[in-house]
Structures are given as C-alpha cells and as structure tokens.
C-alpha cells in the first residue's frame, strides 16, 4: 500500500513539474514520467493490458510526437 502512495505522490509531482517547467522538452518528459508511473499504477490495479497500452502509447509515442512538434516550433515557453 505504501508503494501506491509513493507512486501516486511521485506522479502528482511529475504532473506539477509538467505544469511549471518553462522548457517544453522538460515538460514533455515530465508528462512521459506521469504516463510511465500511471502505467505502473495500472499494473498494480490488475490491468496489464492497459499498462502495456499506456506505456507504449502514452509514455512512448505521445512523447515522441510531442518532441517532434516542439522541434518544429519553439522550445521555450515565453
């Protein structure tokens, strides 16, 4: 149970980091961390299918297309 609490808090901190980072790449990486922790939580909630999908899609591909999009636009939030 304590693991769940730690993971949840870590996830929320990563989420807040995604809010606060001015560097968009850093924000997106924080967002990927949220997805990754969420995928662990999905696994702990007995949802391995969802965990796989979240890890592959949420943490993997979404981050990739975000990074590409940031490279095509601007890196810093003004």
């Amino acid at each position, binding site marked *: 149970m304590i693991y769940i609490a730690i993971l949840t808090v870590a996830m929320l901190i990563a989420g807040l980091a995604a809010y606060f980072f001015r560097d968009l790449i850093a924000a997106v990486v924080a967002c990927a961390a949220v997805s990754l922790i969420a995928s662990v939580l999905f696994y702990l909630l007995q949802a391995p299918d969802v965990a796989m999908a979240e890890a592959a899609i*949420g943490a993997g591909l979404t981050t990739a297309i975000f990074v590409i999009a940031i490279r095509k636009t601007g890196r810093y939030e003004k």
Partner: protein
Amino acid sequence: MTTGNPMMYVGAVGLIMIGLFTVLSKRNLIKIIVGLTLLDTGVNLLLVAIGYIHNRTAPILTQAHADPSKMVDPVPQALVLTAIVIGLGVTALALALAIRVYGHYKTLDTRKIRGLKW
C-alpha cells in the same frame, strides 16, 4: 466509509485537476496540449480505479481451472484501452494544428494569436 486505499482516487482526481488547470491557465499551445494529455491520463486512471476490486487478479485466465469470480472488472479496462487510443489521436491532431499555427504566426502564445483569446 471507504474501506480501501483511496490513494488512487486522489491521484486520478489530482491529475485531472493539474491537467485542467494547465489547459485553463497556460498561454503556450504546446503546454495546453500537455495539459490535455495529463487530463486524459487522469481520467483513464479514474476509470481503471473504479473497476478495481480488492484481492482479485487480472481478468486473464492463466490456467483452465482459474476461478473467474476472483478477477477484477474487465469492462473499465476495455474502455480505457479505447480511451488511450482516442487520446493519442486527439493529441496528434492537436500537435499538427499547433505546428500549423506556428507556421502562420511564428508563435504559440495564445495572447499573440488574434482569435485565440478565450
């Protein structure tokens, strides 16, 4: 009242709030889209958490004689699979639009984009 660990709900609702707040208060389009994905993740977590049942296993039979009444609810998991993919579609479309907006305005700041004041 709650017998179990409501930490999952806290995490899910917290993530939804962070996502919503990012969307509502940030001015950078990419940041707003990041907020949307956070919101999505939070909602998905909420759905799966609602389907979870204490002391039960994943809804996958590993042996022929496994007991189906000892499994968690498969429906929210199926819904979340759908929702994750839909979320990716929305994000991809949003990013393409953001690239397009940048092409027109050379900025992603919603204050500097004429019609994007809301």
